[in-house]
Structure formats: structure tokens, C-alpha cells
């Protein structure tokens, strides 16, 4: 029995999804439910002179209309920011309020000014159209570089130059000196463009206040229901936490965009008490585009210095990070501590300095999107390395081998201390590049490329060797860096009297397959069938607490918390087993689902011990009955997955269209519990990373209109845009968590983007093309090659 870890077990959650029985937030209908529709600003920046709701209120079926004035008068707060980054001079970052409904001035297209609640969705929408808002349109600024100019319009009157913070990391003097004496410097200036996360399930929330119990339930599309409850109760509505249950049922993808506490969650909760009826809000896709936090949007200048042998001597980076109109929950940490701290990459660069300025603009807030800061760091590093290789006439793989940090396992060799605060846990960077080159058959593909070029065909090969910091994070460390939350995870393991096991985890699955992976771990550790294990998540009433799922942390942090509770069960079980077997605890071993007296055939099964714990007639003296343990796990360090992605592309010389012919990925995510699920995570990540390279970009015009805010206009990869992916792994276990796992959710997205761009530049390098702005649309590529 049992030996689930490492096996490609089919997912236990699939049955409900393939039969149409998943239960997503919008699927829930409660008795007496009403429907909310938001009136949103069509302007990026405008003063609200007046709002006339009378026509809407007069419509049949309209239950209520609330405006920013109602919200202001009710005394509730706006949604808070969960991370503080200080100015270089020590001043606290600028943190303007983000009200639930705006009363005075709108600051981005989609800013909500009123909420209509009606008996049905269509009536709510009709009534919203009957609300007349008198706006005085003001000049807007959407571009981070323009927002810091002296005469730029201000997003918030009390935030000079629209600067939220300025921040730096690394040794500036040492870096400047290294760059001054460098033999060669490669410089790139580019925009890492704004992206829309676009989980296919739009956000939704249902507030349900029950007067009889004075209790609230919020159903919401969240990656972290407990965090939402904490922010909602303690910071926004000021209601006692024990009066609020937050449920995140099946959630249709998140990619970061469902981490954050959004205004609509608070609004439906607040309104349900006002009306004493359930209130449901479901975003339309066009609303998602203007209200789900966006990702990326960095304007960067990056320089990498080399000595005469091609060894990296210095890295200097300056970035303007567009934060949008308000601070979303974790916005300030993304361009700073999730970006600047990753600039060591896989290389031994001895001097690094990064300077980041966070800027407000009249755009949708920007926050963590799959990878969050690490894709931006990897993009600039890996574009610099391939560009430098071209400039120095070196092979890009060779240049990487020359500069890699040598292998270290974190046990026999210490972790690697970077120049930018982090200490990598374990790594073998040469191995992933070597394996990826084998998978690609590098020499052969280079020959084919040369041959094709003679025939006028444009084939390119692009590399990316990346590292990321996952499994966030040690609470004390992130606290010191400005986090206003701890970043541990909780798990309760309840062994039922019959030996069946219920596990309550604070992690949340929205596609990751926790119900399978976590059950594999539990079943193996107890030596019981997987069918005897259930994984419960997503409900603050059943799960004690949780920090949720983001930053590829579920298995590394949430899984470790489960292991801690499992160990407590086994320790207690041993006492019961010793009593029953009339042996000393030290003489027992636990394996294969039973405790055995070493060297004998005397044993007692897990289920019998569980039953004894609940029917403690013949029981160790002084031992409590029951078999139910909770644990909190606070990691000792981040985890550091790494890998190598190689793209092979062909560019159509007539049209500039890029065909991605091959995508090779060799990733090292530490130990693997379910290789099928890990491969799936890598595939999806690759697709999103390729999407950024080739297709995706949120485009604002100068007045702040989001001009491609629909699925007809915003291009995401479709099935026929992508090849079959070629994936493999090396395994370098994480030395500091009990499962040795590092996390796999973001790896694909982080590594793939620069590989694809590097490949296209490589295909066109002989035509004088040195850099291209993402996304690499046919028009951009064609213009570059025909310059």
C-alpha cells in the first residue's frame, strides 16, 4: 500500500469539473438574493459634480442605490495596503485612501461611483444606466515616466510628483566602480509591458448577512479567504472577525489577481446588512479588465558590465514601476522585494545596485501577476545576457556557463549569499542548462539555423536561465521588509475514529490540484489509501486560519504545515500503540500504516490506534483522548526553484509573424510529489510567459482609456499559437522544508518570456536587430527587420 509521493496520480477533484458539478461563486443562489451592478467611471480622471439616482430608484425591481457619499457617511474605510515600502530617506510611502465607492474624484476608468442593487441582474444593469453622473473631466497621466515629470497631473493631490516611494538595494558605490572599470557594458532600455491576468472565471462576491445570528457570510473568488476576512473585518468594515465567515469555493483560476482584497467584496458584505438580504455581484469581462489588478508595467534601464574574459562584474538597474491609481494589497512589494532581490540571477556578479521608484497614474491598480516581480527581474537579466553574448561574439550558453554560481546543496555546502539580500537555498545551475541543451540538440539546431539562413529563412534560438524566490516566506524576514502580515501557513490533521483523515489547510486551490497532491503526502506519511484522506480548504469556518495560495507557496509552506501535524499524530499514536502493544515507545517503528515492535511481528494498525484514541478504555494514563492536531509552519527561508528555457522560433520574412517552433523547459522545483500536476503547472506558466512575449499588452491611450479591454481586443495565446512543450526536470531538494519541495506555479511564466524574445532577436540579428519591444507583434517585428 501507499507510495503515492512521486506518482502521477489522477486528480481527485476532476470528477466534479468534467461533469459540470463544480461550485463556483456565481453558481451559488441564496433565497431572497439581490444583484448588484456597479456604476463605473468612463473617465480616467474627473471630478464628480453630482450624481442623480432618482430615475434609477424609481424603476421597478430596484432595491437600493448607494453612492460614495453613502459609504463616506457610514464610516467604513477603504481597502488597505498590506505592504509598506519606505522612501530612501526613511519617510513612509504615500498611501492614499482607496474608498469602496468614490465620492469626490475618479482616478481610473472603472473606478466605481455607485452600486445599484435590484431583484435581478438585468434590472440592476438597466438602473445603472439610468444614473446620471455629472463629471468634470480632468487631464490624466497613464505613463509612469510622464507621471514623474514636474507638470504632470496629480493622481492624489497630496502625493507630490505622483511618487509613492523611491527605493534602492545593493552597493551603489561598488557597482558604479565596477561599471567604470568594466571591459564591456551591455545596456538595454525597455518597457516590461502591462498585462491583464485574465483568469477565465470573472471575479464574483456574495454578501449574506443573517440578522438572527448577527453573522455575515462572504462567498468570494479568492486565493486566500482568511486574509480577505482579516482585511475586511479589521480594516474596512470594522466588524468582529468571529462574526464573519468567508468562503472561497471552487475558483476558476487566479494567477495573482484573486489574492487581493477588492472593494466589491466589502461592498456586498456591507450592503447585505443594510438590506438584510444576500447581495451578489459578478464581474462582466469588460469590468474585469478595468478592475482586476494588472501586472508588470516597468520602465527599465539596465546595464551589465563584463571583464575581458566575459565574467560579469557589475549590474546597475533603474526602474519606474507603474502602480496604477491606488495601492492594491501587495503592490509595493512587487517591484521592490520581489524584483530587486532577484537581480543576482544565477550569476556570480559581485556588485549590484537597483533603484526603483513606485509611481501613481490614472490607470487600474497594478499588483502581483503570476511571477510578480521575478519575471521582470528575469527578463532584464536574460535579455542582457543574450544581448551581451551577441555583442561580445560569444555563445549565449557559454557565457552563462562562465558566470554560473557553482553547485551547492545547502547541506554540505552553505546557501549562496547574494548581493541583494537573499540567501539561495540550494542549486545546480549548470545541470539545467546542460540538460536543456541536450533536449534541444543544440549543435544540430544551430547548424539548421545557419543552413536556413542561407535560404532566406529566419530561425532563432533564445535562452533563459532563471531563478525565483518562492514559498513566501519567513514572517520575520518579510516583516522587516515591510509586510504587514505573517506569511506562515496552518494545517489541521483530524484523524477520525475509524482511521479516516480530514485535513484542513489554509492553502487554497484554484487549479493547482491540492486535493490530490496534499492527499498523496498524507496517505504516504500515514501508510493509508488516498481514498481515506480528504483535503478541505477555502472556508474560514472549517479551516482555522490560512495565508492562502500565491508565490508558489502551497506545497512548500502549506504542505509543510500538514507534515508538522502529521508528525504530531504519529508521535501521539506511538504512545497509544506502545500501551496497546505493551512495549516502550522507543521500541516501536511506524511504517506501512502500522506501529511494529522492532524485530517482532507484533503490530497495531493506524486505524486501531485511531479508534483507541476516541474509545479510550484501555489507554495510557494521563494522555488526552482524540487524534486531532493543528500546526502553523513558518518557513526558515524562501525556496529557490530555477531552470532553463530555450525557445526556437521562425520569423516569416514577408509578414514578421513569429512562429514558436519549439519550447524546451528544464526546471528544478526540488522534490516532486505529483509529476503530472507539476508538468501541468509548467505548461500553463509557459503559455502565459509566451503570451507576454508575443501577444499580450494592456493599452491605454493618452486620455486614460483602456483601448483593448475585451477578449476581442486583448490577445492571449490560443491553442494554435503554441507548440507541444518539451519539459524535463533536474531535482535539487530544498534543504529547509520537510518535503524538500520548492514550488512550481510560477516557474514557467518567469523563464519563458525572455527566451522567446531572445530567440526572435537571434533570428533577426544578422539584419541589425538588437532589441524589440514586447509583445512581438508581426508589425513590430516587420518594422524592425525592415528598418
Amino acid at each position: 500500500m501507499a507510495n503515492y509521493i512521486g506518482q502521477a496520480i489522477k486528480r481527485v477533484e476532476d470528477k466534479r469539473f468534467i461533469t459540470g458539478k463544480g461550485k463556483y461563486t456565481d453558481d451559488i443562489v441564496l433565497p431572497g438574493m439581490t444583484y448588484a451592478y456597479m456604476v463605473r467611471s468612463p473617465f480616467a480622471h474627473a471630478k464628480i459634480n453630482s450624481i442623480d439616482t432618482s430615475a434609477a430608484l424609481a424603476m421597478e425591481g430596484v432595491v437600493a442605490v448607494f453612492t460614495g457619499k453613502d459609504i463616506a457617511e457610514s464610516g467604513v474605510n477603504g481597502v488597505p495596503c498590506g505592504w509598506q515600502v519606505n522612501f530612501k530617506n526613511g519617510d513612509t510611502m504615500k498611501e492614499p485612501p482607496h474608498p469602496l465607492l468614490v465620492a469626490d474624484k475618479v482616478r481610473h476608468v472603472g473606478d466605481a461611483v455607485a452600486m445599484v442593487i435590484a431583484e435581478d441582474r438585468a434590472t440592476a444593469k438597466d438602473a445603472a444606466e439610468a444614473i446620471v453622473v455629472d463629471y468634470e473631466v480632468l487631464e490624466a497621466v497613464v505613463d509612469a515616466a510622464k507621471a514623474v515629470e514636474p507638470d504632470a497631473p496629480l493622481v492624489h493631490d497630496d502625493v507630490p510628483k505622483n511618487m509613492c516611494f523611491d527605493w534602492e538595494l545593493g552597493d551603489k558605490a561598488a557597482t558604479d566602480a565596477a561599471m567604470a572599470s568594466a571591459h564591456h557594458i551591455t545596456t538595454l532600455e525597455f518597457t516590461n509591458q502591462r498585462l491583464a491576468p485574465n483568469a477565465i472565471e470573472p471575479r464574483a462576491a456574495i454578501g449574506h448577512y443573517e440578522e438572527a445570528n448577527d453573522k455575515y457570510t462572504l462567498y468570494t473568488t479568492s486565493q486566500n479567504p482568511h486574509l480577505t476576512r482579516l482585511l475586511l473585518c479589521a480594516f474596512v468594515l470594522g466588524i468582529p472577525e468571529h462574526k464573519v465567515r468567508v468562503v472561497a469555493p471552487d475558483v476558476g483560476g487566479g494567477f495573482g489577481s484573486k489574492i487581493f482584497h477588492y472593494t466589491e467584496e466589502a461592498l456586498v458584505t456591507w450592503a447585505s446588512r443594510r438590506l438584510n438580504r444576500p447581495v451578489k455581484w459578478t464581474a462582466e469581462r469588460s469590468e474585469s479588465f478595468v478592475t482586476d489588478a494588472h501586472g508588470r508595467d516597468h520602465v527599465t534601464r539596465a546595464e551589465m558590465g563584463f571583464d575581458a574574459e566575459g565574467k560579469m562584474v557589475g549590474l546597475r538597474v533603474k526602474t519606474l514601476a507603474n502602480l496604477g491609481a491606488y495601492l492594491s494589497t501587495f503592490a509595493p512589494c512587487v517591484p521592490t522585494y520581489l524584483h530587486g532581490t532577484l537581480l543576482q540571477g544565477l550569476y556570480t556578479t559581485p556588485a549590484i545596485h537597483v533603484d526603483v521608484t513606485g509611481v501613481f497614474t490614472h490607470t487600474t491598480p497594478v499588483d502581483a501577476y503570476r511571477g510578480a516581480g521575478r519575471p521582470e527581474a528575469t527578463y532584464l537579466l536574460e535579455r542582457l545576457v543574450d544581448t551581451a553574448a551577441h555583442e561580445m561574439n560569444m555563445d549565449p550558453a557559454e557565457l552563462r556557463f562562465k558566470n554560473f554560481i557553482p553547485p551547492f546543496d545547502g547541506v554540505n555546502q552553505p546557501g549562496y549569499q547574494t548581493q541583494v539580500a537573499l540567501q539561495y537555498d540550494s542549486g545546480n545551475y549548470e545541470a539545467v542548462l546542460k540538460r536543456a541543451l541536450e533536449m534541444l540538440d543544440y549543435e544540430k539546431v544551430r547548424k539548421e539555423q545557419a543552413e536556413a539562413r542561407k535560404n532566406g529563412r529566419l530561425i532563432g534560438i533564445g535562452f533563459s536561465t532563471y531563478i525565483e524566490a518562492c514559498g513566501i516566506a519567513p514572517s520575520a524576514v518579510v516583516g522587516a521588509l515591510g509586510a504587514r502580515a505573517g506569511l506562515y501557513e496552518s494545517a489541521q490533521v483530524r484523524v477520525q475514529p475509524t482511521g479516516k483523515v480530514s485535513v484542513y489547510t489554509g492553502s487554497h486551490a484554484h487549479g493547482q490540484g491540492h486535493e490530490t497532491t496534499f492527499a498523496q503526502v498524507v496517505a504516504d506519511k500515514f501508510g493509508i489509501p488516498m481514498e481515506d484522506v480528504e483535503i478541505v480548504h477555502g472556508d474560514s469556518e472549517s479551516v482555522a486560519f490560512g495565508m492562502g495560495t500565491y508565490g508558489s507557496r502551497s506545497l512548500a509552506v502549506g504542505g509543510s504545515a500538514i507534515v508538522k501535524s502529521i508528525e504530531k499524530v504519529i508521535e501521539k499514536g506511538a504512545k497509544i500503540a506502545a500501551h496497546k502493544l505493551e512495549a516502550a515507545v522507543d521500541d516501536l517503528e511506524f511504517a506501512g500504516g502500522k506501529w511494529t515492535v522492532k524485530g517482532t511481528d507484533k503490530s497495531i494498525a493506524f486505524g486501531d490506534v485511531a479508534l483507541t484514541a476516541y474509545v479510550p478504555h484501555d489507554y495510557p494514563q494521563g494522555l488526552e483522548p482524540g487524534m486531532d492536531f493543528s500546526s502553523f509552519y513558518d518557513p526558515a527561508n524562501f525556496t529557490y526553484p530555477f531552470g532553463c528555457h530555450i525557445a526556437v522560433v521562425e520569423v516569416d520574412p514577408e509578414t514578421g509573424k513569429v512562429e514558436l517552433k519549439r519550447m524546451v523547459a528544464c526546471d528544478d522545483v526540488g522534490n516532486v510529489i505529483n509529476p503530472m500536476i507539476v508538468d501541468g503547472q509548467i505548461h500553463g506558466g509557459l503559455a502565459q510567459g509566451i503570451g507576454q512575449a508575443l501577444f499580450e499588452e494592456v493599452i491605454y491611450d493618452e486620455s486614460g482609456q483602456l483601448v483593448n479591454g475585451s477578449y476581442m481586443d486583448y490577445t492571449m495565446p490560443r491553442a494554435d499559437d503554441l507548440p507541444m512543450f518539451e519539459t524535463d526536470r533536474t531535482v535539487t531538494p530544498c534543504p529547509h522544508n520537510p518535503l524538500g519541495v520548492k514550488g512550481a506555479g510560477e516557474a514557467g511564466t518567469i523563464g519563458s518570456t525572455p527566451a522567446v524574445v531572445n530567440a526572435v532577436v537571434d533570428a533577426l540579428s544578422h539584419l541589425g536587430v538588437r532589441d524589440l519591444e514586447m509583445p512581438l507583434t508581426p508589425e513590430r517585428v516587420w518594422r524592425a527587420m525592415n528598418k
Partner: protein
Amino acid sequence: MGIPIQVTVNGKTHQHEVDSRLLLVHYLRDVLRLTGTHIGCDTSSCGACTVHVNGLAVKSCTMLAAQADGAEITTIEGLASNGELHPLQEGFREEHGLQCGFCTPGMIMTAAQLLADNPQPTEAEIRHALEGNYCRCTGYHNIVKSIQHAANKLNS
């Protein structure tokens, strides 16, 4: 005043008076409470709402409920028969063709149409047939394999 319609959904006949502007997808979800059919966009671009109307895969957000009068409709809930999963449902499970599950019903209903038209499609034909359906989780790799799995099963 509503428009009277009679539709057969997953073998069961329903009669309702519907608002003239009610979309078929809202009828299925809100009136019949068949919530396996999902809504992912408002421009008929994502395919999450795909169902079969008179044997053809249709995005149910592109059609009014009133237009479905007299139609035979199959949704994801009606695809399995006698407790036996459809080979596509099995294929998606076997090949890990889904993660969050939100696009899955539409993907499966679209793929069912493909296999009805073309029982042994090539990889390129599968990818082309899925052009109207977005998935943000899988990168389509395992969806293609899932459909190949089902095709092989149906042809064996």
C-alpha cells in the same frame, strides 16, 4: 410579457416564459440551474459557455433563449450516459486536461463537436478546432492530449 418556449435539455423537456433579451446561457444557468455551463466573457470569445443545440456546438451567449424554442440541447451535465463518463470526460481526467475547471465544460463540448465531424483529427486540426475556446491554466498541451486520448478510445 414573456415569450413561451419549450426546450429539451439533457433529455428533459422544459416550458418557460422568458424575457425576450434573456440569453440562452442565462436561461440554462439561472432558470434551469444548470451551472456547469460557464460565462467567461461578454464578447463570445472565450467559449466557456459552449453547449450543443440540435447537435451543433454553440456558444450559448450568442443565442437568445427565445431562439432555442423547440431545440434539443445538451450541456456538460448531460454528456455522461448511465453514469458512464463520455470518452472526452475520461480523456480530460486521464491526461490532466484541466486545472481550475472553469473552461473545461466548454472545451469538452467543443471537442465533442470536433470528434463528431472528424473522428481522428491531427494535432493541428485539434488546435484549430479549439480556436474559439480560451484556457488560461493548461497552455493547451494536455487538452490536445486529452482529445487525442478520447479519439483513440472512440476509434478502438
